[in-house]
């Protein structure tokens, strides 16, 4: 895959991640800080967190076709990098507090859930493309067969 294609594929995940972060913020907020109120700037945080989470994905670009094992290893490495960067950013921005372990643990769990959901959504889109390709392939084969008869 060329870097341009990799960039396109990573960017297409940006809005999915931002939407899922919105959802996770709503759930975590309702559980841990139900009375907290925010200004308009709060609308930016899902976009910022989504943009930060794309950095490891962009950095781990490989020109070579990866084997399944290499791919799984890369996904795990990306997940760890995203967890570390986002928790670090959350602590730095004082959204998380080191003494509030349950909130930090829930935040880490949310990152894991969002990461898995992004992979599931990408997989479902690929299933749709694969079905479309199979159907177009059948039409192509019958067209060629009819022509050669």
């Amino acid at each position, binding site marked *: *895959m*060329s870097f341009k*294609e990799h960039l396109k*594929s990573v960017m297409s995940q940006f809005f999915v991640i931002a939407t899922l972060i919105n959802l996770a913020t709503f759930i975590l907020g309702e559980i841990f800080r139900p009375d907290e109120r925010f200004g308009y700037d709060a609308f930016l945080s899902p976009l910022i967190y989504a943009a930060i989470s794309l950095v490891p994905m962009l950095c781990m670009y490989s020109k070579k*076709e*990866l084997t*399944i094992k290499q*791919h*799984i290893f890369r996904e795990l490495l990306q997940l760890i990098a995203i967890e570390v960067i986002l928790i670090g950013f959350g602590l730095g921005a004082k959204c998380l507090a080191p003494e509030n372990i349950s909130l930090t643990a829930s935040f880490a769990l949310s990152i894991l859930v969002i990461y898995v959901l992004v992979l599931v959504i*990408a*997989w479902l889109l*690929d*299933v749709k*493309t*694969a079905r479309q*390709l*199979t159907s*177009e*392939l059948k*039409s*192509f*084969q019958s*067209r*060629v067969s009819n022509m050669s008869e």
Partner: protein
Amino acid sequence: MYPNKSKYHNMDVKISKISENENELVDIRCHKETDSVREIAAFVKSRQGQLSGTLEGRQYGIAVSEIMYIESVDNKTFIYTAAKVYESKQRIYELEDILKPKHFLRISKASLVNLMKITSVKPAMGGRFSAVLSNGEEVIISRKYVSELKKTLRGEEI
């Protein structure tokens, strides 16, 4: 006099016109059956719906319609039929040119597939796809080649 002419690969090319009732024939007259001679023979066969391949030291003619896919591994080219694997002297890009009109398509940097032998496509890891062939084998379609596959299937120009 040119006693060692073939040593310098200066093979003459002679084309003679024959009558309609005679069979067309490509006759290679050489001092020794070298790799270059075998390549020429393989090219002529490939133009007629056949490729040449080696299996256990013996040369075989393989009907293009029998080929599932072709793969390049460590600078060697392998031709896969439903049950056998032959080695070819030709490079994958040469075979790509020859086999394009016969519904073969490049699906990754190292492989060409016979579109008529694919039964279905399914997703594989890393944004790639997998082509399931009629003998149950699966070959990986790189994401880079998916748009070319779509265009070919829709009859669009690549």
